[in-house]
């Protein structure tokens, strides 16, 4: 029983962290139809900044600063690497995203010298707590609630503000909303800002829990978050969150299966297999709207 609880707990915390990245994916994909491969690396960069800033500044300054700079980074990436390609074929934009991801990873290798970096111990979050006989960190308990709060806030933003309405309009029909006088570029920038901000929050939670950061630390969580976004139905925020939690829990359950089965190595493979099954049988995901193909 203790074991089951511990597996579920880590599943929930992994899922929560994927969720925060997945929201960024789903928003960007909903609007630009772009798999932002660099998103996972933005998440990694936020983690690295967390290390460098907290080394010189108190937490109350450094963590907001990390979030702000990550937001700026997301904004700059969009302006520099995606905006010039607005009218180019979709493949070029995706290649540009891969290029950005390559650049961020290589720069991180250069700066860190390829050494795994240690994330600072943030008081309280990194403290341990005993849940039903299992030791765990506070961050594991807090993550799902924080995610929930952020999703509610985001839902308010999207459903009840002007920029939210614009976002919904753009994701429905890019061209028409442009004709209706929506400033496409600022809407897209807003999406990237929200996505990167959440990735920064996600990085604080994720790396407090798993404190070693390597330059490739963002790649896998990034891809899985994307799968979560597809699973939940691309463009749908609650969908992405539920997808992320499901994937996180499934993954830890697979890892936790008896060793004699020797299937725990397939926890990543399972995620991708799930993706393919979803894409083939229910491409709109759990909560996505059925896409009508316009010619």
């Amino acid at each position, binding site marked *: 029983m203790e074991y089951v609880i511990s597996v579920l707990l880590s599943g929930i915390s992994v899922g929560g962290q994927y969720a925060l990245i997945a929201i960024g994916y789903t928003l960007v994909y909903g609007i630009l139809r772009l798999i932002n491969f660099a998103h996972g690396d933005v998440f990694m960069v936020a983690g690295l900044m967390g290390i460098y800033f907290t080394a010189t500044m108190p937490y109350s300054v450094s963590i907001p600063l990390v979030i702000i700079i990550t937001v700026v980074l997301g904004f700059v990436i969009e302006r520099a690497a995606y905006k010039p390609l607005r009218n180019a074929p979709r493949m070029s934009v995706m290649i540009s995203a891969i290029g950005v991801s390559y650049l961020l990873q290589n720069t991180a290798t250069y700066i860190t010298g*390829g050494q795994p970096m240690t994330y600072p111990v943030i008081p309280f979050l990194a403290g341990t707590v005993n849940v039903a006989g299992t030791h765990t*960190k506070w961050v594991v308990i807090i993550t799902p609630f924080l995610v929930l709060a952020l999703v509610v806030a985001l839902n308010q933003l999207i459903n009840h503000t002007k920029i939210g309405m614009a976002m919904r309009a753009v994701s429905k029909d890019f061209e028409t909303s442009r004709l209706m006088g929506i400033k496409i570029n600022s809407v897209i920038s807003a999406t990237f800002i929200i996505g990167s901000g959440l990735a920064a929050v996600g990085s604080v939670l994720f790396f407090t*829990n*798993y404190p*070693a950061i390597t330059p490739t*630390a963002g790649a896998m969580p990034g891809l899985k978050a994307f799968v979560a976004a597809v699973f939940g139905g691309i463009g749908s925020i609650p969908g992405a969150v539920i997808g992320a939690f499901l994937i996180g829990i499934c993954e830890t359950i697979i*890892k936790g299966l008896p060793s004699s089965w020797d299937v725990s190595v397939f926890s990543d493979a399972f995620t991708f297999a799930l993706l393919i099954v979803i894409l083939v049988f229910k491409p709109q995901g759990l909560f996505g709207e059925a896409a009508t193909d316009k010619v």
Partner: protein
Amino acid sequence: MKKIIALIMTTVMAIGLTACGGGGTAGGGSDASGDVIRIGVFEPSTGDSASGGKKEILGMQYANAETPTVEVGGKTYKVELVMADNGSSADKAPSAASELVGKDVSLVLGSYGSGVSMAGGPKFEEAGLAAIGVTCTNPNVTAGNDYYFRICFLDNFQADVLANFAIDKFSAKKAYCLGENGNEYDQGLCVFFKQVFEAAGGEVITDSFPTNNSDFTSYLNKAKSEGADVIFTPVSIAYAKQIMEQAASLNIGIPFLGSDTLDDNMVLEATKGTNLQLYVSTFYQEGGSETFDKGIKEYINGNSSALAANGGNDTISAVTAMGYDAYYVALEAIKASGTGDKGAIKAAIPSVKWDGVSGSIAFDSIGDAVRDTAYIKTADTASGSWAFEKVQTGSAK
């Protein structure tokens, strides 16, 4: 038009760079006839083994600073280290190896990581260049390659030592082995450990995690719920660090056994201030040689890039000591060759004997070092340093 400009630009760049590359190599060739002997350093400084590779280079650099010349046939030569980064990956290794061959080195040291050594090995063999592995412990590095030697012990020996230690110290009946999927180092050690441990009547559970995994709590909890007496984690540094941190927060309470990769100050740092028990088998224990300890600490603290390469403090990793010894073995081989010619050096290596800081080094017929002991040390979690546990020999063969 744009296309033509692009084409012209790339051609100009290409020509310019050919000139650079060509110039560099040509320059390297002409110097060799002077009073310099080059030793190639085939180590990763990017990729996932970068951390270990850099520490190994550090030992060589210190040795080079200490003894920058070698006397061959009555003439004094300056020894120069030529670096090539093999990027920790088997597909970059051949070109890094041929980069060294192209720079006209007399022999090669390295690499940290067996996979890259095996990928680079054929290039050295083809060029008739001897390579001395420093800490590549996989049996297949030297087997089938006449030109590859090594000064460290092998995986099967190390696993044997640790399995015996687990039985001796903890009277362990059940062991949980965790390695990275697809990493020959991890999996090899797990298999050998299992062989020895089960032969001694124990039970072994093996498990693997996918590459780039960061959540180890499920694995650790599994080990606990299955009632393992020891956890054996022969993984690379970044994962080891992750595992230690998570084990500390889970309050796992089972002793950890680690291979030589875990003998790293990043891992040590992760255990500081916790109640973890970590034991690693390694090549060298700080305090083994007073003069070396003192010298290298001065060297590390006196040089900011060396300090950064060592992870920001002056704890001596075993790989650094091994790098240091490898350099001196190389010098011995050069001296014994009498000419400094790569063919003569290769012929001289098998008979080289050297009393290094990590113990005496001699080679057997395959080219492996003759070693029958390993140091076991434990992480002193209060002070954040390594404490010597014992010298462990393998099971009697």
